[in-house]
């Protein structure tokens, strides 16, 4: 029903706008301090990473162990661009985000073609190896700053313009996170997305039904890499410093834990667990030594007792919630509400 769909879209859009309005106001007016708004940006970066990894691991069903590798490729590409392009930062940064995505895609294709042509678990090993190689190469070359890291990455906005840096950073992050969620959800619900899910369910049956499995596997994997690159660009310009050691295997695993815990194949779950697992470690700093130990136990237990993750394939839908709350006469009420939101 197109009408129903339209109202559902509008409702969601209204919620997103309200969410942005409130949080952007809090950040811009300085009611939230720099530390908290920094965490907010990291939450959004992790949402992009988790949702995109969910596309490859949850929906496509291929284990990717080098998501941090794609992120680092994007981060370095974008940082090197804004450092060397000479363009004003308000132009260079959006461009660098695109460049980060494209560079990550190129690496994704290079890795994906040999690994995804084959059936089986080669992608896990190859992406794991890729993450290590990228770390080695970044340490090896001079133009990436080597083991010292890359410093002095410009802020996302000119200081002279008088706009709060925190506000602009938050806005970029929020916009990109929403865009990522929207694009990946739209992809999953499209014809292509159904092909991807079919491959996860049964690769042979999908191939027999005329689905070009290699193409769709590569497409989903490369899309995930693209958004990891975008998240990397955001991360680089958020911190202003890049350290190759940050993008190690543990970070890839952290993102994987977020996906698995939230639910393999649930975008809602990815968002919720990305929020929770970014904020919790900040609150529990004293236990940071035990974090990876706890993550490993969580991974094993979730897989043993609920292999689809805590939320399974559940998706939150605002219009469904409203319908539930309003009961039978929701139809009219919903339209009124949409009208009001407009």
């Amino acid at each position: 029903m197109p009408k129903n769909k339209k109202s559902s879209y509008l409702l969601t859009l209204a919620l997103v706008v309200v969410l942005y309005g409130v949080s952007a106001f809090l950040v811009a007016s300085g009611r939230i301090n720099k530390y908290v708004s920094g965490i907010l940006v990291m939450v959004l970066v992790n949402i992009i990473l988790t949702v995109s990894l969910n596309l490859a691991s949850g929906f496509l069903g291929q284990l990717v162990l080098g998501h941090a590798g794609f992120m680092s490729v994007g981060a370095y590409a974008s940082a090197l661009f804004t450092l060397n392009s000479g363009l004003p930062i308000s132009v260079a940064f959006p461009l660098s985000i695109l460049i980060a995505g494209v560079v990550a895609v190129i690496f994704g294709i290079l890795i994906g073609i040999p690994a995804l042509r084959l059936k089986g678990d080669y992608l896990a090993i190859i992406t794991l190896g890729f993450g290590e190689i990228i770390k080695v190469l970044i340490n090896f070359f001079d133009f990436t700053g080597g083991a010292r890291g890359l410093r002095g990455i410009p802020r996302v906005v000119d200081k002279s313009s008088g706009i709060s840096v925190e506000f602009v950073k938050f806005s970029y992050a929020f916009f990109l996170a929403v865009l990522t969620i929207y694009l990946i959800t739209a992809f999953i619900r499209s014809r292509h997305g159904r092909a991807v899910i079919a491959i996860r369910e049964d690769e042979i049956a999908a191939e027999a039904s005329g689905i070009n499995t290699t193409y769709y596997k590569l497409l989903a994997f490369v899309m995930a890499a693209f958004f990891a690159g975008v998240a990397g660009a955001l991360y680089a310009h958020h911190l202003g410093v890049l350290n190759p050691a940050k993008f190690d295997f543990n970070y890839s695993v952290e993102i994987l834990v977020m996906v698995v815990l939230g639910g393999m194949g649930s975008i809602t779950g990815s968002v919720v667990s990305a929020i929770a697992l970014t904020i919790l470690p900040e609150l529990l700093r004293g236990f940071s030594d035990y974090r990876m130990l706890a993550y490993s136990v969580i991974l094993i237990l979730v897989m043993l007792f609920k292999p689809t993750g805590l939320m399974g394939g559940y998706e939150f839908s605002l219009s469904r919630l409203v319908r539930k709350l309003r009961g039978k006469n929701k139809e009219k009420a919903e339209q009124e509400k949409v009208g009001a939101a407009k």
Partner: protein
Amino acid sequence: MKFASQIINGLSLGSIYALVALGYNMVYGIVGLINFAHGDIIMVGGYMVYVAMVVAGAPLWVAVLASILVCAFTGIFIQQVAYQRLLNSGAPRISLLITAIGASIFLQNLFQMLFSSSGKSMPSMITGAPLNIGSLQISRVTMVTIAVSVLLMAGLQLVVKKTRIGKAMRATSEDAGAAVLMGINTKRTIVFTFGLGSALAAVGSVLYSSAYPLITPYMGGMLGLKAFVAAVLGGIGSLPGAMLGGYLIAVSESLTKAFGLSKLTDAVVFGILIVILLVRPAGLLGKNTKEKV
């Protein structure tokens, strides 16, 4: 001469890769799982030798025996706790891979908590005069490593080809369902395979830590990965392939070092993996099986 000695080094390291790769290969052959925790079993073995020799002051043979037993036990324990349930329920492969990753991270972080992340230096285990051939010097450790691994690999071939349990292993890996119908206890066979693979890893770890006498909680990660690359290069599921792959990977690694690019060895190893998967996905000695529907 530097070149020749690098090749000898490669052969010695290759024997260790081969021993570890055999563990990957047997487990992959029998349950179709990349056992990510296998590399960390090596680390467990190294720490057991350390505990036995340095903390408890036991002689070498006791330490090696203890390490083999503990590793075999750890391997079986991981299989029972983390994989058994999923293997029985026919869960999707990705679930198994994730639990395997979980087991690997668990072992690494457990040992980091127990022994700190800074690593322990091992006592020298294999001593003796080096062998001199012309100006080429081969250390006792290298000789023992190559000899022990070759003996063990030959022994493993005998076990797999000639004994009852070896026959059961081959049957289970060919068709687990049919093996059950033929009266083979596949569960026990799988447990035996995990134990045997882990015991080989323990020997590999003793040899490795006598050649490179520093053990850290993370040493298993890279070593295990390279051994896995060796297994893929040789042909996963083929035992002679694992040996061949181990030697090829280690020699190419030593040659990279001989050319003065030691920082790039890891990149070379994974470069090789990508090329193999492009050119010959079944590996050098692997059988190219067509999938039947």
